[in-house]
């Protein structure tokens, strides 16, 4: 099976090299593509110097736009499975095999690496965990998807959902809405335990002061997504 690891990166000059090198060591059979989201630091120079496989976006599209580019690349190059892996070093590529396994075995079409199954490693702040719990409930209410870590960007999707996400992928804070979109399209979603690290360098795109606004915006997006997409049954 052809597997592509999508690594969105924005201003990750300090850790992108170590992230990609670790991935190459942990999963040599997987291809990868780094999506440089118009970084203003030396991320582009690092990618060129190290000879990594990359795409440069000429304008900043945000995490959703960058990941969507990765899915389009996966579709055009006929990959069977696409895995999202953050370029900031939070996601450990050692868990890649366990994230991909349910799709390879045909047990699921989307697999999410959840921090909250074993509750080990970096679990984010209490405030953010509370927000994630609320969003998990909201997602379950509007799509029926039972997840414990809806904001986890460490996820794998099968060929069918590479096609779906290449066509339509949420742009603002996409992770929770992407779950809803997939579930409404009949996806089988499974979670596997992963351990995440604290971000090594750089800054999160979600700042504390924007957390409440993010919550409200995501909840509204999910509600509108449910209204505008017909749920596939069976």
């Amino acid at each position, binding site marked *: 099976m052809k597997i592509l690891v999508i690594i969105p990166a924005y201003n990750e000059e300090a850790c992108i090299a170590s992230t990609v090198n670790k991935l190459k060591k942990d999963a040599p059979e997987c291809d990868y593509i780094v999506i440089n989201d118009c970084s203003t630091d030396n991320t582009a120079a690092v990618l060129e110097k190290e000879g990594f496989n*990359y*795409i*440069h*976006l*000429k*304008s900043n*599209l945000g995490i959703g*736009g960058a990941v*969507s*580019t990765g899915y*389009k*690349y996966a579709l*055009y190059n006929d990959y069977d499975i696409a895995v999202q892996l953050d370029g900031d070093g939070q996601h450990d590529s050692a868990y890649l095999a366990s994230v991909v396994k349910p799709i390879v075995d045909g047990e699921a079409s989307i697999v999410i690496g959840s921090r909250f199954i074993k509750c080990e490693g970096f679990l984010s702040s209490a405030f953010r965990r509370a927000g994630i719990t609320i969003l998990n409930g909201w997602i379950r209410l509007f799509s029926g998807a039972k997840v414990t870590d809806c904001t986890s960007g460490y996820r794998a999707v099968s060929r069918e959902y590479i096609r779906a996400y290449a066509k339509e992928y949420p*742009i603002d804070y996409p992770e929770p809405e992407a779950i809803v979109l997939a579930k409404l399209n009949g996806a089988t979603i499974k979670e596997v335990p992963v351990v995440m690290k604290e971000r090594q360098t750089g800054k999160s795109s979600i700042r504390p002061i924007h957390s409440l606004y993010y919550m409200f915006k995501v909840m509204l997006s999910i509600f509108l997504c449910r209204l505008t997409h017909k749920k596939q049954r069976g």
Partner: protein
Amino acid sequence: MVLFTSIPSLLRRLMVIFNIQSMMNGVFALCIFFMVILLMSLTSICSKQSDKLRTLTQENAILEKRIRDIEDKLEK
């Protein structure tokens, strides 16, 4: 606005329907209503253009990657 200026009785009838006492208030309310419609229309246009721009940026970047790969192959 041209229509209401040329046929004032039309505006008067509209004010009666909405039970607006003062013609001036009615005119301002109509202006605000039309501005809201215009804003919504412009928002919709902006949103569609943003989508198109995103798609163009993505496709351009993927094409650039393809060209780079082909150039690398040719060099080898």
